[in-house]
């Protein structure tokens, strides 16, 4: 029996996400702020699987299921269509995974950001192609196990925020489910800005990260507190703001909780720590420039 609170849920219960899915938490938190006057675009990925089987859907807002590589242009098309109809109070939201953003959809996203079409693009980053069975993507962190990198990923994670900042789009931000208030504030801020807004949302995946089903929020907090995933925002590609001062825990606190990193040796952990520290210094420097 659904209570009145659940009827307001724009991600309806009964969806097909795995138990403890961080992505479902992320979509729920985003949709809660977006509200019912929203059109969403999803692509073939976990979002599609979570969406349910015809004729039922878990999305409480009108949602268009597009092709994998074109989340951004589909959303931009809908946004422009609505604009021509004069219905500019409706926000258009694109959900795509890290594969659909970092790899396959990068070119089309770049085109939309260049045109500055009025959409909110949320990249639900679970750091691999989880829906198809855990294959490596360019968002997979270094040394992480996936089915296609059984010895650990030899490459570093792509810095998507820098790519977006290079488009000088009005607003890009990182967020994660462990800080729901920070995430919802960023969505609220993005709603008030016209143009291409980008949210890089880290969503732990119990299935692909090889973790218990109950620690997704905790992992996401550890990612921030170890500086692996700092919370910050970039405005107009220039003004960097760090939103959360991390506790600077050692990266082990984050890595060793996950099965996909359990094979890491000491030298590899040291390397991850060096990379994290270097990125943090770079970020702090950019934030100190104040655009």
């Amino acid at each position: 029996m659904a209570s009145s609170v659940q009827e307001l849920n724009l991600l309806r219960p009964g969806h097909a996400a795995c138990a403890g899915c961080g992505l479902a938490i992320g979509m729920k938190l985003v949709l809660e702020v977006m509200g019912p006057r929203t059109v969403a675009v999803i692509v073939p990925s976990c979002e599609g699987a979570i969406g349910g089987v015809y004729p039922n859907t878990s999305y409480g807002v009108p949602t268009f299921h597009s092709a994998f590589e074109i989340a951004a242009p589909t959303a931009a098309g809908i946004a422009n269509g609505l604009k021509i109809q004069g219905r500019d109070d409706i926000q258009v939201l694109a959900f795509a995974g890290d594969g659909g953003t970092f790899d396959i959809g990068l070119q089309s996203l770049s085109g939309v950001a260049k045109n500055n079409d009025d959409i909110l693009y949320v990249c639900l980053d679970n750091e691999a192609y989880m829906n198809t069975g855990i294959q490596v993507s360019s968002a997979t962190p270094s040394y992480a196990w996936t089915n296609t990198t059984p010895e650990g990923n030899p490459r570093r994670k792509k810095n998507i925020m820098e790519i977006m900042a290079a488009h000088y789009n009005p607003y890009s931000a990182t967020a994660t489910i462990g800080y729901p208030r920070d995430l919802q504030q960023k969505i609220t801020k993005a709603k008030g800005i016209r143009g291409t807004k980008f949210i890089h949302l880290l969503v732990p995946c119990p299935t692909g990260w090889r973790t218990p089903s109950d620690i997704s929020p905790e992992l996401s907090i550890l990612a921030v507190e170890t500086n692996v995933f700092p919370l910050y925002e970039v405005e107009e590609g220039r003004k960097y703001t760090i939103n959360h001062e991390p506790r600077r825990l050692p990266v082990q606190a984050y890595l060793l909780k996950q099965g996909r990193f359990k094979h890491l040796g000491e030298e590899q952990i040291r390397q991850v720590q060096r990379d994290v520290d270097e990125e943090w210094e770079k970020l702090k420097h950019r934030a100190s420039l104040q655009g």
Partner: protein
Amino acid sequence: MNIPTDSLCELVIPISYGSTAVIETGKWGFQKPDTNLLTAPCQEACPAGINIPEVLYFISEGRKDEALFSMLMENPFPGACGRACFHPCEANCIRAQYDESVSIQALEKYVSDRASVQIEKIQPIANESAKRIAVVGGGPSGLSCAYFLSLLGHRVTIFEAKREPGGVLRWGVPEYRLPKSILRKEIRRILSLPIEMKTGVRVGRDIPFEDLDHFDAIFLSPGAGLNPSLGIEGEGLKKVWKGGEFLERINSKEKVILGKETLVVGGGNTAIDVARSALRLGSQVTLAYRRTRNEMPAIRDEIHEAEEEGVRFEFLVQPVKIHPGKKKRLAVKFQRMKLGGPDATGRSRALPVKGEFLTLETDGLITAVGERVELAWVPKPFVKNDLIGLNPSPRVFAGGDAVDQPRTIVTAIAAGKKAAISMDLSLRGNSDKALLSRIRAGKKGSLSMASYLSMREGEKWLEPKGVATYQQMNPIYFKASHRVKIRKRSRAKSLKKFSEVNMGLRPEEARLSAQRCFSCGTCNYCYNCYFFCPEGAVSLDPFLKTRTVDFDHCKGCGTCAKACPRAVVEMR
């Protein structure tokens, strides 16, 4: 499900109109979350059993009147305890294992100063079988017993020997620690309940004890008003006072003139109160104690404040003789002491060092070495080891400093409450001892009046399942922070007058301090379980105090239980 077919789109693209809510994903899981309630260690440690997590939750939400109401449910003296209690709650605060304990006492004072509860709200419950009960002694214990009995619908008469009620709070604790205006306010609040107060009536002197026989039950809380002597030579000299009498004269606003230097003997709260009062009368004060600072029974903060104000300490000395000195001064001869093995109470014994003495000259000597109970008026069978027995006859109960328990204000209040509940049970013919253990807050013996009232009204209430521990908390959700430093009146200003030293928390400081509470084992609506449920199956209502889970869709992932920082959610 009604699928519209007039849409052109439909011909090209299939559209889902139904909701996945029809799919019962709850069948996937093999465990479900359940709401837990644990007693917080602070509440367990508080003899009065105040529901501290609930009080602090209300303060952090700015609902201070509700916070005061919650405190008044368990303790009629939040203003006095917010100042003069030895706050065992803070010593047991779980947050101390993470960074620093929560400022519970300062928050209690804040609420009692800033909030007001409509007296109509603490109306006594209707009781058709109301009984008449006599309370002997209007100190904290007697007033507490009368307050709770009255809330339970009984008719109470208090017999108070002095001209005003309040006991040690009125005549012992000095103004700078507990302003008498605060005490009067709290006593007025208690006496606004239907309680008959007879002041100036000493049982055994003004009326015989047998006169109490026509009451259905009696509560004895005469306190420990007698000051024992040191039993040494020269005690009868002029300028040698007893601590209790000295404090009573100050609290009666009598003029007390001290010399330039004063010597205080003792290590308890009375000794510290005497020393700091003597400072305020313009004297230089030295406090002599036979053990060391660590063994002093006085409240730590009070010792610290006394030292800051300029009290000098002389440890490991015991007076053996007082004789007149030069220029009308006194010369006090002390035996030097050393610490020995622990005694029965676990404190180190003080043993004399043979042949080593110290003589101090002073203008006055005040002794504060414990209190004794006046027992001449009490029927012999009720007396045990120079004290009154806790429950010496089926209809006679006792509490406060006159019985065998720690002599603190809050234990006295707790004894009054326990007696009130026991009397209510026995007067209603209920002799089920197990009932008392069901309304316990933790294992240290404090009772919850809120639970008792729920039980008495036949309501169901959530019984706590044990006491919370630090290992059950999830500290990743807390940010390390410091206690707020409480503003104190400057030394120069506080020494001029008897005005209150501790200036209390500002509203913003109080909110931040209350937010530091882990709220161990009690839901404080942080919404973690709501935010982090991937199914959107959890809903919370802070006003109805409910937390419901949609079990048709809960997949049993356990995220809510793990994300609850205070162990309120548990997977079953």
